């Protein structure tokens, strides 16, 4: 299937982009927004988005098929790994979940449609309307599509014209998503533009910033700081910097009958999107003192990763990434040779997966691509001391615990500053209502009009 040339990223030669083309595209988006989007009802928009998501779950859907055909080459994920990630994302994008998102962030499903009273207030003496930015610009980073796709969904809900600038080589899935939106509702897709160019191409970007009302950017701290400095005053900036995540396994989960299930869930978190996202674990902290030792968890995790490699292969790696894995493996082999406290499990004849077990709580960010540390700890205090250098940068903790223990651990993690706690095995599957890095993702996009009613009586 050949896609029609509809978005800038569909052009064969992105080098042909000019600042005037960017300006023209932005003006067209804004005009289309006024004509087709500004007056739409939230409930309709949610229906359209849920319909797009449902389409993507159908195996015969042409956009999904194209994603699975071209994705492995363009993005480096194997087709089964990509399919699993897309299924997780789109199966959560339901009408119910989107309504829950609006209700959570804006307190009323019609907040974006009309002046509505505060449901929590004692009296309806104040009404409010939320507005999205007229032109919302997205700057995406990395090959993992979920953050970009979710950002587009949020922009549709806020009735914004949207221009998404993708990092080089990463526009495939945003582009396919936009084409699938166009199939469901061409008018909505007319308010979306997808383009791709190397970050820092200033003439194009300056043209884009000049038209933007709000810029939502993802990337490293230095990239975000540099981008922010270049924005004209008055343009809102929402930056999502790099985060990292880890897992925590309580000792009661190491019983013979629970351990295989917990290790399989942990393996799914490592394999999902090849461990490349901010929500992917860099280590699993495993409590000592349970029915099985933490080392046994590492061993079962290795076996699960090996099993997943057969069904959801990681896919080939660029040389430098493979070399980073090989270099680390050889280093840990030296440690393992000198101490029974370090053990190493590796895929045979490839860099497909690696498990390093250590009694050493300090967190080392891994080189990803299914390279995971398992660290034995006496308890949560020791684990948190080990990640202290990354305090404030931790996104998600995948937690395996039960009952009151689970509640106590969750509260301690929350107070320490973790922004999301979820069951092990779900680390890469946040619901749409997820507060991204601890902030309401939809709520942060809007501005409000408050209307205070005259006192009556």
């Amino acid at each position, binding site marked *: 299937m050949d896609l029609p040339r509809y978005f800038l990223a569909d052009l064969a030669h992105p080098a042909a982009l000019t600042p005037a083309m960017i300006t023209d595209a932005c003006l067209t988006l804004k005009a289309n927004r006024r004509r087709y989007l500004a007056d739409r009802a939230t409930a309709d928009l949610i229906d359209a988005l849920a319909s797009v998501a449902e389409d993507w779950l159908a195996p015969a859907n042409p956009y999904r098929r194209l994603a699975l055909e071209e994705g492995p080459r363009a993005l480096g994920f194997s087709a089964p790994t990509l399919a699993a990630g897309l299924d997780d994302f789109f199966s959560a994008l339901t009408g119910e979940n989107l309504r829950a998102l609006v209700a959570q962030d804006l307190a009323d499903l019609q907040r974006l449609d009309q002046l509505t009273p505060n449901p929590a207030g004692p009296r309806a003496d104040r009404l409010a309307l939320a507005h999205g930015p007229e032109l919302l610009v997205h700057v995406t980073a990395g090959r993992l599509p979920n953050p970009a796709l979710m950002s587009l969904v949020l922009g549709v809900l806020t009735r914004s014209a949207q221009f998404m600038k993708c990092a080089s080589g990463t526009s495939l899935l945003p582009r396919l998503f936009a084409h699938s939106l166009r199939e469901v509702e061409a008018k909505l897709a007319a308010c979306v533009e997808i383009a791709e160019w190397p970050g820092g191409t200033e003439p194009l970007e300056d043209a884009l910033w000049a038209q933007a009302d709000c810029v939502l950017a993802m990337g490293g701290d230095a990239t975000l700081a540099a981008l922010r400095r270049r924005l004209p005053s008055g343009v809102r900036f929402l930056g999502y910097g790099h985060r990292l995540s880890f897992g925590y396994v309580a000792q009661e989960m190491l019983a013979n009958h629970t351990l295989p299930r917990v290790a399989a869930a942990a393996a799914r978190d490592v394999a999902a999107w090849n461990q490349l996202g901010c929500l992917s674990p860099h280590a699993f902290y495993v409590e000592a003192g349970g029915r099985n030792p933490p080392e046994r968890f590492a061993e079962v995790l290795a076996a699960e990763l090996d099993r997943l490699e057969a069904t959801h292969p990681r896919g080939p790696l660029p*040389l430098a990434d493979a070399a*980073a894995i090989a*270099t680390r493996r050889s*280093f840990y082999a030296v440690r393992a*040779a*000198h101490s029974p406290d370090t053990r190493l499990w590796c895929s045979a004849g490839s860099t497909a997966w690696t498990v390093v077990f250590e009694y050493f709580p300090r967190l080392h960010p891994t080189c990803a691509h299914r390279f995971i540390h398992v660290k034995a700890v006496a308890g949560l205090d020791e684990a948190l001391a080990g990640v202290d250098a990354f305090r404030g940068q931790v996104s998600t903790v995948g937690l395996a615990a039960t009952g009151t223990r689970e509640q106590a651990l969750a509260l301690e993690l929350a107070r320490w500053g973790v922004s999301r706690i979820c069951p092990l095995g779900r680390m890469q599957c946040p619901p749409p209502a997820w507060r991204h890095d601890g902030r309401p993702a939809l709520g942060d996009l809007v501005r409000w009009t408050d209307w205070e009613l005259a006192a009556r009586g």
Partner: protein
Amino acid sequence: MHPDLLDQLTDRVRAFIEGAAPFREAPYDDAAFNALALELFAAQFAAAPAYRALATHLGASPETVRDWRDLPAVPTAAFKELVFTTLPVAARCREFRTSGTTTGLPGRVFHSAATLELYAASGRAWFGPHLLPEGARAGGACLRLFSLTPYPDAAPHSSLACMAGMVADRFRAEPVRFWSRVREDGAWVLDAAGLTAALQAAAGEGRPVCLLGTAYSLVHLLEHLAAAGLRLRLPTGSRLMETGGYKGRSRELSRPALHQALSDRLGLPDTHLVGEYGMCELASQAYDRICGQARPRIYRFPPWARARVLSPETGREVGEGEAGLLAVTDLANVHAVLAVLTEDLAVRRDDGFELLGRTARAEARGCSLLAA
């Protein structure tokens, strides 16, 4: 290692070095290399507990290994955590350290008086034919050496400064100036103004010079020349040995850009810019050209050190033209371990290798928070 055995092996490696033809005309004597490598491995297995532990862990021992290619290689990162040496504490008179980069702890390599001599012999035996193929008297006049490193005594843990000193001792015609000083934090500071004046004087006298320096020292020199608006024309026959690595100490230039700038600011033709590849974990160095020749640049180690390019996926040697991690088996490493796995990416070329851009190296290290 029993001291006598160490001395004996040191002598035998030295004899191997002296007996090796400076350039390959017939295939290297692989059988002789293999025999000496296996003997050395047995001695290092016995004398270096850290190496014995690694080899045993990997299932390799003097009884099982029959081919030098199967010797367990020690990753350079491991030198930061463990001491790999055959030398008893009392014999260790010199300690080389890696520059530490971002990982905090440096890697450490020990030498004795005898192994330092072997280090010098290995270094000189391959430096000479590459930097001074005509002999020390080039162009009819004595070549003057200018080292951009500090004096070896001022940087006792630098293998590069040590090597520059050893080369100077062997090839100098007069006392050699070392043009960097060591700041309190360990960084090398180039006296660019003094060096520039000395180079101008040499140019005035028409005597060819030989410069030795790291890429970042050369960038500092080039920046000084650019700021002063100077373009030197070093006398015909002048040459330069450049060793890679910026380590964040200067602006980074690609090699072609560095070579272009050196030609532009110093008047050195590309044929007289010789790349060196070395590290403190190795007693031998590779060069990417013979001064004055215009053949494509390929790094080659001497016959007593063999480089292999290994696939990171399989650990096996890659085919011609393919890329992987560079591993080196160096007989002159009597004092430590003979097989070292580097973190450098290289392409296998003919009987040598081509280094991939320094960014590849930086990436591999950037992800590396090992031993922090």
